[in-house]
């Protein structure tokens, strides 16, 4: 049975795919449709699309992007995050073909709206996004709109959203975009939490760390971003180095078969 996933993350800013480094610096990559089509051909387990300039500019979901992705014929499950403020947004996005949605700023602002979404779309469709860092052994949760961080207890967050959110994506935002620098101390924040499942993201392409993290029971998936753009078949290459057996095997497209 497949119990762990390796997810590809696509960051969108100004309608283009970008590499993101520590939530502050960006480099261009290209058109979202072509990046997503390529990941689909690589057979990635899931694709998370994060539109990072929606909420910060008080805009709603990027429907222009969503429409353009509807036109490409892909088989990979898609997840969308960015600018989702209401149940109506959630419904529109799911109707467009996305299987799940990611919520970030709404977690700070309006838990009731998230409850409505969970009730109508299903708890499985909702992922909570938590950009975290460690400061003097305390876990800090970044509100990226105000750029302020709040000390949190993962146990409290997990209990607060227990029956509403299916998974949390924990982002080591300071090491996002780095090569293999995910802060393993962040795992102390959630290692004893049994009633939630976590996706990890941010500086995670080091096979040793990936293998260690996949052994943790409450890690359901790891997401990789920038480095998938550096080499052909980088996704398959990373999967090749993961020794965990309950994952979909790597895949190389062959239309001749």
């Amino acid at each position, binding site marked *: 049975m497949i119990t762990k996933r390796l997810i590809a993350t696509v960051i969108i800013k100004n309608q*283009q795919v970008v590499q993101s480094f520590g939530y502050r610096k960006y480099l*261009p990559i*290209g058109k979202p449709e072509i990046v997503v089509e390529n990941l689909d051909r690589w057979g990635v387990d899931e694709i998370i699309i994060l539109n990072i300039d929606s909420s910060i500019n008080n805009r709603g979901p990027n429907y222009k992007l969503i429409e353009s992705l509807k036109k490409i014929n892909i088989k990979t499950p898609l997840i969308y995050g960015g600018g989702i403020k209401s149940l109506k947004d959630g419904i529109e996005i799911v109707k467009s073909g996305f299987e799940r949605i990611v919520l970030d700023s709404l977690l700070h602002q309006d838990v009731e709206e998230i409850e409505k979404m969970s009730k109508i779309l299903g708890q499985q469709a909702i992922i909570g996004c938590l950009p975290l860092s460690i400061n003097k052994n305390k876990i800090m949760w970044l509100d990226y709109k105000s750029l302020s961080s709040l000390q949190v207890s993962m146990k409290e967050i997990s209990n607060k959203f227990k029956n509403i959110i299916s998974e949390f994506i924990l982002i080591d935002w300071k090491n996002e975009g780095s090569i293999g620098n995910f802060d393993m101390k962040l795992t102390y924040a959630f290692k004893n939490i049994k009633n939630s499942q976590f996706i990890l993201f941010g500086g995670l392409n080091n096979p040793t760390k990936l293998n260690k993290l996949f052994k943790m029971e409450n890690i359901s998936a790891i997401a990789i971003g920038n480095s998938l*753009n*550096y*080499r*052909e078949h980088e996704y398959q290459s990373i999967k090749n180095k993961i020794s965990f057996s309950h994952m979909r095997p790597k895949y190389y*497209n*062959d239309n001749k078969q």
Partner: protein
Amino acid sequence: MITNNENLMKTQFCSKCLYGSDHPLGIVFDNNGTCSGCLIHEEKNNLDWNYRWDLLKKLTIRYKSKRGDNYDCLIPVTGSQDSYYIVHIVKNKLGMNPLLVNYNKYFNTSVGIYNLANLRIKFNCDILIQNVNPFSVKKIINTTLRKYGSIYWPILAGHTVFPVQVAVKHKIPLIIWGAHQGLEQVGMFSHLHNVEMSRRYRKDHDLMGVEAEDLLSNFDTLNEGDLWQYRYPEDNDINSIGVKGIYLGNFLRWDPKAQHEEMITRFGYKTRNLNRTFDTYDYVDCFNYMDLHDLLKLYKNGYSKVTDHASREIRFGRITRDQGISLVKKYELKSIKFSELFCKWLGVSRNSLNFVMDQHRNSKYWHNENFENWVFKGWSTFSKKKYSKKENLTKSFIENSKLLKNERESYITFGKGYP
């Protein structure tokens, strides 16, 4: 941050080079208004290039044929660009035995034919040349010109796919390219990312989002027989051979002007004056790249190759931003010289060609005031600076093909080259 207050209201321009936010490869700016291309360019002055050279040696040594019965690597070459420098590094510095691969573009100048022949002779290399039949190539160009405003699609597709096909067919996994265009122009990657060749980049940025299979349509005359030569090998085949395309620009401080000048002196690389740019080194092998193709770039994107050349020279500190603008204004609206040659080759009239080309003028950069009268409102119009004849910057580029001054103006498909 510099913005133009007229037609380019929403276009942000770099505070250092001449690139704008509409750049077709994608570009981002920092809080100081400096573009990602300029920021990444700074790495050229800060990285330990000795260390990076050692990385390259360690990477390539694994590919040396142990029994000496196959080539160590492939090098895609043309009669211009950085081919000489790449072959020099691979053969003379890395001590590898490369197979050169060339996609024949049809639009070859005699300088290009000479340079390619001289390349294989001077470096004593084997070469494989692909020549797709002209009937199919013309059919493809008819379609891509009409649909995408491009006469260069088959050349870009062939140049980027032929080496990969040869790698798979002949089991030579390593392909060595020169500079990564995305990295050099818009800072798409850091040198430290050691970015490699990918099908995704080729489709997105070399081929304008259009692969061979995307050209097949019920509403067009192209068929599989015209296009199969441009199909990318399957992922399974690429993986089974372990095909890998690396860029020397990640491991060497890449400076095209300096490199070309070394190749002129050491190996007799020939250059020529081009009508639409001050750079006499790049694209000398083609009648159309710096002519009709460059004009189409201006129509679609609001800037042309001279802006790329000027931005490059600004970043290397060889000219100022004002001097760059001056050069762009001197060259970008110069008329093209070889459209009749192209029309004769393709079998279309000049009026037909102009009609199709005009469909691809981007209304953001071109205003049609009355029939046939177009006003240019592209990137360079953001600056009021005019071209100054006093700043004679173009003398710093060498032109040395006086030997070929009497060349016939016609495409050379195959040439003997020179002894």
